[in-house]
């Protein structure tokens, strides 16, 4: 969805195009102009089969009254027109209200999770920029959450968040931060949002760290030296050297983190066992509940299409704004 690059004909650099007789040159030119497209064919076919076709099927499903009575033979499902969308956006109905609530929860969750992950990733990348003893070890350690399988990791978190027997409450109790006789819940009620956020940031900040660390390799040391000679302190160097040099990395990183987090299904599904508390009712889980659990696939598809359109608009708007800013810069 976010791929925007479509390379045109490639001209090899550093090699004069004039060598060889004219006819051969032209043939090679034709071959060269086809080659990139040929190379893109497998990717395009897979993209079509894995993303585009299912999306179109989803759009079709959203126009049907596809319930348990019709899932075995879709051709029997009555055409519903825009009825599913009407229910989705009807804020007077419980379904529409809950979807809107879920949308706000997801927006808050995504903003906080992406923001915190990015800040943690940047801090770690900057502090690990200069060589020191144990740097390799710290790098490896920081990347561990990213390398762990999602399900296993989140199941471990559910154990840690349990009220009576969980490690989190035990540790907080030892530190005197909670009342040991009446410890807080993490998997239900108000705190479930915090629990979800913690797991999400824990999982995604190593990715931000990895990207920013790679980006920092490309910042020439001379820039720092020059700014140090000019008397710039740490914050000044961060603001005027590091961040501008990281802009291309940040542009992609923030977009990818946003899309992953907004669509995140695994974390809440494993953490809350399929029925998330209202305070942590992310949109992906909400759509799952509205289709698989209540067997109303038409309605679920309508919600999915709405989500898809929203993410498309946000992505396009983001790319437009950031690209324009880069051109102006």
């Amino acid at each position, binding site marked *: 969805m976010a791929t925007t690059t479509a390379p045109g004909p490639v001209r090899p650099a550093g090699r004069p195009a004039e060598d060889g007789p004219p006819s051969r040159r032209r043939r090679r030119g034709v071959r060269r102009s086809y080659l990139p497209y040929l190379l893109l064919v*497998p990717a395009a076919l897979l993209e079509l089969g894995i993303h585009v076709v299912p999306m179109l099927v989803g759009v079709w499903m959203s126009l049907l009254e596809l319930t348990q009575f019709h899932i*075995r033979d879709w051709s029997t499902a009555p055409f519903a027109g825009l009825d599913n969308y009407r*229910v989705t956006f009807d804020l007077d*109905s419980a379904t529409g209200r809950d979807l809107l609530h879920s949308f706000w929860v997801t927006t808050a969750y995504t903003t906080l999770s992406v923001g915190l992950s990015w800040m943690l990733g940047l801090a770690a990348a900057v502090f690990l920029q200069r060589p020191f003893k144990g740097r390799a070890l710290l790098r490896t350690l920081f990347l561990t959450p990213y390398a762990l399988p999602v399900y296993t990791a989140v199941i471990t978190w559910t154990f840690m968040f349990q009220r009576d027997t969980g490690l989190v409450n035990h540790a907080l109790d030892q530190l005197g931060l909670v009342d040991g006789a009446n410890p807080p*819940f993490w998997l239900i009620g108000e705190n479930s949002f915090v629990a979800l956020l913690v797991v999400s940031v824990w999982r995604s900040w190593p990715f931000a760290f990895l990207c920013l660390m790679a980006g920092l390799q490309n910042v020439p040391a001379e820039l720092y030296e020059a700014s140090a000679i000019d008397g710039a302190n740490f914050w000044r160097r961060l603001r005027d050297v590091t961040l501008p040099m990281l802009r291309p990395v940040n542009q992609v990183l923030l977009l990818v983190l946003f899309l992953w987090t907004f669509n995140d299904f695994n974390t809440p599904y494993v953490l809350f066992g399929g*029925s998330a508390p209202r305070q942590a009712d992310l949109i992906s889980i909400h759509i799952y509940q509205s289709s*698989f659990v*209540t*067997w109303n696939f038409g309605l679920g598809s309508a919600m999915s299409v709405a989500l898809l359109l929203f993410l498309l608009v946000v992505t396009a708007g983001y790319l437009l704004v950031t690209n324009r800013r880069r051109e102006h810069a």
Partner: protein
Amino acid sequence: MAVAALLTTASLAACGDSGSSSEGAAKTLSYWASNQGASIEFDKQTLQPELDKFEQQTGIKVNLEVVPWSDLLNRLLAAATSGKGPDVVNIGNTWSASLQATNALIPFDDATLARIGGKDRFVPAALAAAGAPGKPPAAVPLYSLAYALYYNKKMFADAGIAAPPATWEELVETGRKLTRAGQWGLAVEGANPAENSHHAFTFGQQWGGEWFDSAGKPTFDTPQNVAAVKRYIDLMAVDKIVNPSNAEYAQNQSVADFANRKAAMLLWQAAGSNFKAQGMSPEEWGVAPVPFPATPPPGGKKVNSMVAGINIAIFAHTENRDGALQFVKFMTSDAEQVILNKTYGSLPSVKTVSADPAFQAPEQKVLGEVLAATAAPLPQVPEESQFETLVGTAMKELFADAASGKVVTEALVKEKLGVAQQKMGS
């Protein structure tokens, strides 16, 4: 190079296509069993010798997969949608009418029933929970279960309590006596929607409520249902005989709490084999019917359990219908009914073996009496599985409120049930 890439893509696509389950041969069947024992592994070890017997008798090999409850309904739904999947499946009997509506299961009309030994073999109440009334059943009963009240005999004796409670008022009083540091009167599975909805049904019956009217329309937020659900939640919210932590229980932690002497009472189906697996000896616990209100509310019914159980069904997409019917006949035969139900602590679904000594233990006697006299099937309507999810989830939220000290009022219960009902309509 591009051609090579294309070829790779084509072969990858071909690999993706070859995953269908249609062996075509009449000599194999695939079977999804539900998880009945303490673990998936236990079930495999229990079922495999029986499947080997079936292969010896008929030459048909059965490929077994034991599916955990958390996945079973989704897997069935996927199989029903795609027309690809196993030949024979176990289903929770409360889903019968919902799955029947998909037409993905073969109907057991009289002729089909005759091929597996006839309609009269089966316990009528169990067969009634295998599909909507007036239609041929979508499955046949395999294991029968009912809810009972399990109690810790030693804790009762220590507190000077002579007999298990027969009314909710007595249960609350007993629970209060048994609630002290590190020990609670009752354990509940507060974050498990299916468990919650089963109790909603039973309490609803006792308080004179119905979850669906005669036309099959949901009637969730009637005063009777509100009072019934509130009575159940109040065991934690008002009576304080349930540990607030139970509000986050969804992985059978309440059974573990009972087996580990953290709770004195538990409402569960055939829990005995599970207690044993967790190291609690059969002498330690007793079993009694689920209580009733001391004075029945107007319209209240004498029901203290749903007709619980597991049904066995055949997918209409099977290419080996004869083999599948032979297998269902085998699983519901007298010999297999005794062996399997004895292992799982459940009751046979056929009348012919109910007198077998295997089912005369105190636990099975109580379950049998409840099933025979005071159990009722959950509403056999296509929307039943939605009822379990929506009402069960609403109750999960109510437990969460109660656990965090919020006052659970009738208005709040009514609001939550009302929202659940609205979602049924959309």
